[in-house]
C-alpha cells in the first residue's frame, strides 16, 4: 500500500459518479445563485442584472443578520449536544442487545418519519400544549393548578428539532459501534479495567467517527432549517433559514435571498472542512492506539 502515495486514479473512478452528480445538481446551480447575489432588486419579484455589492454590504453591516447567525449557531450547538447525549445510549443498546431482530429496532427509529413532517411537528401541541397530554396528566395528579406553558418557545423548538434529528445521530453512532470487535471490551476487562473504564478506553474512542458524523449532520441540518421554529416557536424563535425564506418567498427578493444562502453555504462549509480536519486527527490517534 506504500505505492498509493503516488497519484492513484482509483479513488477518482469511485468518486466520479457522485462528484458528477453533485457538480451538475449543486455546484452549477449554486454558481447561478452566486451570480444572482450581485443583481439588484428593483421591486417585488423584479430584478435587474448588475454587478454590485449592495446585498453583500447589507449582509456584512446589518446587525439584524449577525444576530440571526449567532442565534442559529447557538441553537444548533445546543441541539447537537443534546442529541449526542440522548442518542448515544440507545445506539449502544441496539448495537449490544441480544435481541435478534436489530433491524426492527432500527426501523422503529425511522418510523416517525412516515407520518408527514408537518403533522408530526403540529402534534407536539397535543402533547405539550395547554390541553395536551402532559399538562392534562399533571393537572389530574394535582401537581399543578395551572397548565405549564411549554409550547411556542425555545424549549419547544429544541424538542422538535431533537425529535426530527435524533435518528440521524443514533443510526450514525450505531453503525460505528456495530463495527467494533466484540472481543475488545472483554479483553480490556481481563486486563483489569472496570466496565466503565473499558467503555471509556475502548468503545468510546472507536465509536467516535460515528458520533462525529452524527454531530456534524445534526448541526448542519439544524442550522439550515426554518419550518420547525415557524411551527413550534414563538415570535422570538427563528433561524437564519427563516430570513432566507422571507427574502425569497415573501419579499420576492432573489438577489438578497441568494446572498444570504451563499453566506450560509460558506459558513457551514467552513464548519465542515474544519471539523473533518479535526476528526482526521482523531482517527489517526485511534489507528495507533
Amino acid at each position, binding site marked *: 500500500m506504500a505505492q498509493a502515495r503516488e497519484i492513484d486514479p482509483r479513488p477518482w473512478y469511485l468518486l466520479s459518479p457522485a462528484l458528477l452528480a453533485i457538480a451538475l445538481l449543486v455546484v452549477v446551480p449554486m454558481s447561478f445563485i452566486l451570480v444572482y447575489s450581485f443583481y439588484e432588486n428593483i421591486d417585488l419579484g423584479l430584478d435587474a442584472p448588475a454587478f454590485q455589492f449592495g446585498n453583500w454590504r447589507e449582509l456584512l453591516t446589518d446587525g*439584524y443578520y449577525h444576530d440571526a447567525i449567532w442565534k442559529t449557531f447557538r441553537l444548533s450547538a445546543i441541539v447537537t449536544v443534546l442529541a449526542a447525549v440522548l442518542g448515544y445510549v440507545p445506539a449502544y443498546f441496539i448495537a449490544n442487545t441480544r435481541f435478534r431482530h436489530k433491524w426492527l429496532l432500527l426501523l422503529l427509529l425511522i418510523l416517525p418519519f412516515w407520518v408527514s413532517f408537518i403533522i408530526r411537528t403540529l402534534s407536539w401541541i397535543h402533547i405539550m400544549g395547554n390541553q395536551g397530554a402532559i399538562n392534562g396528566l399533571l393537572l389530574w395528579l394535582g401537581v399543578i393548578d395551572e397548565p405549564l406553558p411549554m409550547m411556542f418557545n425555545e424549549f419547544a423548538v429544541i424538542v422538535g428539532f431533537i425529535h426530527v434529528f435524533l435518528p440521524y445521530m443514533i443510526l450514525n453512532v450505531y453503525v460505528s459501534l456495530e463495527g467494533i470487535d466484540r472481543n475488545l471490551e472483554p479483553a480490556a476487562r481481563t486486563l483489569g479495567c472496570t466496565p466503565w473504564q473499558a467503555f471509556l478506553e475502548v468503545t468510546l474512542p472507536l465509536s467516535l467517527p460515528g458520533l462525529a458524523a452524527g454531530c456534524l449532520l445534526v448541526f448542519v441540518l439544524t442550522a439550515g432549517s426554518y419550518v420547525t421554529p415557524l411551527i413550534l416557536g414563538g415570535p422570538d424563535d427563528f433561524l437564519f433559514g427563516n430570513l432566507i425564506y422571507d427574502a425569497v418567498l415573501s419579499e420576492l427578493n432573489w438577489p438578497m435571498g441568494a446572498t444570504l444562502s451563499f453566506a450560509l453555504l460558506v459558513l457551514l462549509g467552513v464548519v465542515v472542512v474544519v471539523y473533518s480536519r479535526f476528526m482526521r486527527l482523531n482517527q489517526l490517534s485511534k489507528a495507533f492506539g
Partner: protein
Amino acid sequence: MKIDSTKRYEVLRERLGNGDVDRRTFFRLLGFAGMAAGVSGGVMTGLSRRALAAGTELHFEGWGGVVSEALRKHAFDPYEKKTGNTVIDATFGGEAEVLTKVRAAGSTDGHNILHSSGVSWYKRWVDAGYGTELNLANIPNVDNVMDSIMAPFRAITPDSLSAVPYDYGTTGIAYNTEHVSREQAEKLGADLLLAKELKGKIGGWGGDWANRAWYGALQSGQDPNDIEDWDAVWDKVREHRSLVLKYWSSGAELMDLLAKGEIWVTEAWSGRVAALQAQGHPIGYLDPKNGLAWMESMFVLKGSPMAEAEELLNFMLDPQTAIAVAEGQKYPPSLDPQKVAMTPVIEKLPAYDPTGKLAGLVFRDPDKWNPVEKQQRKAWNRIKKGA
C-alpha cells in the same frame, strides 16, 4: 490491546461466515419485501383510474383540500367528459411559489389557471406581463357575477379581464366565547388584539405584512386605504407582538390553535372560523369597522389555450359548481345573490352579503398598497423577529 494473528484470523473467519449468512437473509428479505410491494403496487394501479391524455391539457393550480375536491367533482370531471380535454389540477403553497417557479423556468409552461388571491396579486401578475385578455362572450356565466366584485379588477385592466372573480371573504377577529364576551369583543373591535389582560393568549397571522399593517392602521386610528403615518402603524404592531403567543402561518395552524384553546383571540379568515363553528367549537367571529375584505379570482396566465380555458371558467362559474365549492371552502361565491338562488348554508357564511353590492366590505386598494409593498414588507419581516 493487541490480538495475536491466530485469533485475528479466527475472528475473520467467524465474521465472514456471519456476514455471508446475514447477506443471504438480507437479500431474501429484500426479495419478499419487493414482491409484497410489487403486488400491492399492482393492485393500487388497477384501482386508481388513470385519465387518458387526449385533447388539450389545462393545468390548474389551487389551494387543494375540499376546494379541489369540489372543483374536480363539479367542474373538471363534467368538463373533461364534455370536451375531451384534460384538466391537471395541482396544489400550490401560495402564489409566490408559482411566481418563483415561472421566473426560474422562464416560461409559463405547465401553468394555465391559478386560484389567485386578492386584487394585489391580480395587479402583480398583470404588471409582470403574465396577463391575458379573456373573451367574456365565451363565458356566459360571468353575467351572474356581482358587478361590485368585478369592479376592482376592471379598475386595474379597464379594457379586458385576465381573470374572473370567484369568491370572497374577510379577515376579521376570532375570539373564544368562553373567555371573551361578545359585548367586550364588539366594544373593543380591532383593539381586542391589544388587550393586555389576554397577554400570551393572543395570536396573529405572520404570513402577510399587509394584513398586519391593516390592523395596525385600524388600531392607530387611520384609514387603512390611506395610511399616512407608517411609524404609528408599526408601533401598534410592536405592541401587539409583545402580547402574542404565536404568529400562525397556515389555515391548519390557525384552526388548531383556536380549537385547542392555545390562543383565545386572533385575526382570522372568515371561512376557517365558519369551519370551526360548524364543528361546534366556541369561537365567535367579528368583522371590526373597516375590517379587511378580499376576493379570490381564477387567473388565466399568458400562453394558455384561451378558448379551452374560457370554457373551463364557464364550467367553474356554473351556479351548481360555484355553490358546491363555496360550501366546501366556506367562502361565499362571487355570484350575485339577486340573480342566483343561494343555499341556506351559503346564507349563513360569515362575510356573506345578500344584497350583492358588497357595500359593507372594505377591500385593499392596490394603488395605495402595491407601491409601498417592497419597503413595508421588509419592515414587517424585521419587526416580526423583534427588530
